[in-house]
């Protein structure tokens, strides 16, 4: 049911749709929690390399459940997930977790080591990197989010916006195929929100952003999906999705007051 990747040229250079397998392919994914609550009813979606896609949806639509499937924390009840051609299975989960960089909503959950340096090194060190190579990887990742100067600080001594950026770096350090962000703009002041947006836009990486922040989706993602009631209810250019007031209303999504729908 889902459309092919948007033909419009991607703003990130050199990552135009290529014959390589899509960064993310989800096929008729269904999942019920152990208590019987059905969260996903058959999700289909494909994200090509270099695309930036927003996953929109009201609370309880199954967004978080879907995200948990992308790196094998939950395993599909039915259907399949594959990342750059590699299916998510118990025996591939280690490589899958390297390929899918998950940035959680609360940076205090993501940053658990005593210093920023240790935290950013956690992922690559688990992949076996040591010494000089590890150090280089850590510094490069922090540099990409402009946080190199806090490398020796403790995460709980940083501001919220700084912590969110360091959380992005912890995942970038694993050089993932796709970056998945859960509500990246939540709890950020407008300045930090814009700063983070600029950083995300500057990354040359496939990006899936789970959010209710529709203007943020419009700003950063050329394509949007609406997940509602456990299925993909809409898939198209963000501009078009946000301009469809009826579609938004049908899925409990709203543009902020005073925000003109894009035309």
């Amino acid at each position: 049911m889902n459309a092919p990747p948007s033909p419009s040229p991607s703003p990130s250079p050199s990552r135009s749709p290529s014959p390589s397998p899509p960064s993310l392919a989800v096929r008729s994914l269904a999942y019920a929690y152990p208590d019987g609550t059905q969260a996903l009813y058959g999700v289909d979606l494909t994200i090509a390399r270099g695309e930036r896609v927003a996953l929109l949806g009201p609370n309880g639509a199954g967004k978080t459940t879907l995200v948990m499937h992308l790196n094998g924390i939950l395993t599909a009840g039915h259907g399949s997930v594959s990342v750059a051609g590699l299916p998510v299975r118990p025996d591939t989960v280690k490589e899958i977790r390297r390929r899918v960089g998950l940035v959680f909503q609360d940076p205090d959950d993501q940053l658990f080591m005593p210093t920023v340096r240790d935290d950013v090194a956690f992922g690559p060190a688990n992949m076996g990197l040591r010494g000089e190579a590890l150090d280089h990887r850590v510094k490069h990742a922090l540099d990409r989010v402009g946080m190199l100067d806090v490398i020796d600080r403790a995460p709980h001594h940083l501001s919220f916006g700084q912590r969110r950026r360091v959380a992005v770096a912890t995942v970038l350090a694993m050089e993932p195929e796709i970056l998945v962000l859960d509500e990246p703009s939540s709890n950020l002041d407008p300045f930090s929100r814009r700063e983070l947006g600029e950083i995300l836009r500057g990354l040359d990486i496939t990006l899936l952003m789970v959010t209710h922040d529709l203007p943020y989706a419009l700003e950063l993602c050329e394509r949007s999906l609406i997940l509602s009631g456990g299925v993909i209810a809409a898939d198209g250019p963000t501009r078009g999705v946000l301009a469809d007031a009826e579609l938004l209303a049908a899925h409990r999504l709203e543009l902020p007051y005073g925000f003109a729908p894009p035309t």
Partner: protein
Amino acid sequence: MGAGHHHRIFRPGDSVVHRLPPECKIPALAGFVLVVVATSRECMWAFGVYALLLAGVAVAARVPAGFVLKRMVIETPFVLFAVIIPFIGLGERVEVAGLSLSVEGLWAAWNILAKATLGVVAGILLAATTEPRAMLLGARRLKVPPLLVQIAMFMLRYMDVIVDEMRRMRVARESRGFTPRDIRHLPVVARSAGALFIRSYERGERVHLAMMSRGYAGAMPMADGPGASWRQWATAAALPAAALVVAVAGSLW
């Protein structure tokens, strides 16, 4: 919270004591405390010498007396307990300023006070000169079971987060007119404690997910420098060694 945070017990510096690797300082502290505890309480002058040794360390580490004194408040419960003993002690009694005190109790109180104070001061000096993270590294190099080091690490990382959560819950209670005054309010406070426990437990689950997402497989990678040199070991050993000489001299006296 956020920026503008300062360490409450670590005092940044660049003294000999600060530069000593943690895996030397921790055993040195443990050795010193063991010697102090093993010294007989009748050998009062030995405790004076121990205090001088610690003062020497404090001077070398450039930790001012006021800094140490303020943090010694933690000892208060022991002091209170020690003060009570001479009154409730049995056996032979003496009159001091009109009060009847037990001789055995006085000795016991002195024993607790002297040894606890020396131990607390030594601990404060270690904490003042060793970053919390270095302490964990030291524990790991000393082959403390990795699980214990990880638990300590998470405690260190999440202490502030949980204290902050607790503060928010208290503010939320008080904003709605709750002021704990008597015993009947205890259930409310207890329920808050329960809620805090559940919140922390759920955070633990989320942290575990975040760890799994980055390839956690049981081991905690931490940047590690070179090990301690024999010279550093010797420097750190000076404190317990000097204390041991004093203790042996004291027992032969």
